[in-house]
């Protein structure tokens, strides 16, 4: 069968039309998927609020946020978040003391003092630490750190804010180190060479030139580490003892916001007041981490623009 030129052209345009149509369908799909992240983030906020509505109406957001007692199953039931918020802050504070100096120190060494092969090794080490699930950190804490804290500080129980905070500090290290190292790495070599040419030593160059230039990125790394520590659930649930009392020092047991949600959600009546209060805790948690992450992102964005030339 012979094909006339017109038939051939007709077939070609048919194929082109089909492909154009497919293109349009796929473009729609891809645009939808692209916008999905905004939808999910909004949906999280909306549904936390919807489920928290009952508690906000019946207990009141102000009463919950300023309440100093947490007796969710007592009579009368008291839903005060302060013990939980202060518990979270105390554990995070201990973590901060661990991961800020160690994380930034390690990032400076890896970026400025070490050879290429060592950077690769450290990348694997950090990847491994980030890959270990939080429940495993919790379990190691239960097996190793709780007895150690108990014996070292002569306490009746090793389940303290200190124990949880130390483990959280280690867990946040990969985030802080990798982001700080990226920030240090992004500082143009011309700045280092300029400083060295003026007679500064390597260290003088680092703390007068490189670290200040990378400071916003390092700050963002610390912020993201902080966000990770506040939001971490399993390790603190397993290690802090979960006593819902406002703590006065790090050697006391604390109950965090995350631990409270995880521990109590299994025992509540779905749709009930306690259930709704736990969503309010989630809303507070979401608000805190959202703010921290947004601030860190904006800082990172500004830094990226700064060195883009």
């Amino acid at each position, binding site marked *: 069968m012979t094909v006339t030129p017109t038939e051939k052209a007709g077939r070609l345009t048919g194929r082109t039309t089909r*492909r*154009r149509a*497919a*293109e349009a369908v796929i*473009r729609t799909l*891809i*645009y939808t*998927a*692209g*916008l999905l*992240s*905004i939808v*999910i*983030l909004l*949906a*999280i906020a909306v549904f936390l609020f919807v489920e928290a509505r009952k508690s906000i109406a019946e207990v009141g957001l102000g009463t919950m946020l300023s309440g100093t007692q947490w007796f969710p199953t007592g009579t009368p039931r008291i839903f005060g978040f302060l013990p939980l918020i202060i518990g979270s802050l105390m554990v995070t504070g201990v973590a901060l003391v661990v991961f800020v100096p*160690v994380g930034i*120190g*390690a990032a400076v*060494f890896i970026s400025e*003092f070490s050879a290429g092969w060592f950077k*690769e090794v450290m990348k*694997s*080490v950090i990847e491994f*630490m980030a*890959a*270990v*699930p*939080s*429940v*495993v950190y*919790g*379990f*190691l804490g*239960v*097996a190793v750190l709780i007895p150690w804290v108990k014996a070292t500080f002569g306490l009746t129980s090793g389940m303290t804010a200190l124990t949880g905070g130390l483990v959280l500090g280690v867990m946040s290290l990969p985030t802080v*180190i990798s982001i700080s190292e990226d920030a240090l790495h992004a500082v143009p070599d011309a700045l280092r060479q300029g400083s060295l040419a003026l007679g*500064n*030593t390597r*260290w*003088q160059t*680092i703390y007068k030139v490189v670290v200040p230039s990378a400071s916003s990125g390092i700050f963002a790394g610390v912020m993201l580490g902080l966000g990770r520590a*506040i*939001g*971490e*659930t*399993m390790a603190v649930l*397993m290690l802090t003892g979960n006593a819902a009392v406002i703590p006065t020092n790090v050697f006391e047991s604390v109950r965090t916001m*995350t631990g409270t*949600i*995880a521990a109590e*959600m299994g025992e509540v009546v779905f749709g009930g007041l306690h259930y709704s209060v736990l*969503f309010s805790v*989630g809303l507070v*948690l979401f608000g805190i*981490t*959202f703010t*921290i*992450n947004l601030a860190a*992102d904006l800082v990172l964005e500004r830094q990226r623009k700064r060195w883009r030339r």
Partner: protein
Amino acid sequence: MSDRNRRARNARTVEAVMKVVTGACVALVVGAAVLILGKIVISGIPGISLEFLFSKPGMGMRAGGIFPIIVGTLMLVTLTAVLVLPLGIMAGIYLAEYAPKNIVTRIVRLSIANMAGVPSIVYGLFGLAVFVLLMQFGKSLLASALTLTCLTLPVIITSTEEALRQIPSDLRQAALALGATRWRAIYKVILPAAAPGIVTGSILGLSRAAGETAPILVTGAAFFLPRLPDSVFSQYMSLPYHLYVLATQVPNVPPEITWGTAFVLVAGVSIVSMIAGAWRSVQRRKVKW
């Protein structure tokens, strides 16, 4: 003159001291990693046997193996992969190939970065409200997988976009010059070239999802259910939740069972992600654009 010498000497001393101080920080990090790995390997290996891996738990989880738990974890991760990969890869393609430089794209990027920092227990609450209760999937594999999909999405999107951006635009332009439509250029040329990066990024993201406990705790993981899930609507047992249960909820569990479970979890998650990471760097070195 001597003053300047002293200053130079002091500066060198400070440098040496700071090298030791920052080196000590690295040593602490490496030490922690070695301790974690060493403790789990040394305490975990004695509990590992074929019987442990392939039998059901018995005597209130104080004896027997973890077979249903391993299978439950694999089913959960597979289902999550089926849900998250198409969405995440398409969103990655959007950002790398289609996204205009405007305020919407900026908000998309901010949302993705922010999603990565939302606490996992908050994803759990979201999954409970939406998938378990509102959509009435109940506490199930499906509800947990959908929750983990939301949690893993930012990782998959970011790694896909990064992999696509490393493909030089010559390839794209050559395909377009040959008359390919935009999608055909992506589908036939760019995606195959970026596949190694996308695959490893996805494996890394999914291995993190496999270790998550908090989100599945409230959306479907069973405390004890010594049989295999028979549909996506049934509950399941999972390694991370099982480890939590053994470590804190059940008294007098023989240590080799708890450590064995921890070993299987860490080995699964970290070996898979280390192989994926190593493969990616090999691929990167092999292909020079």
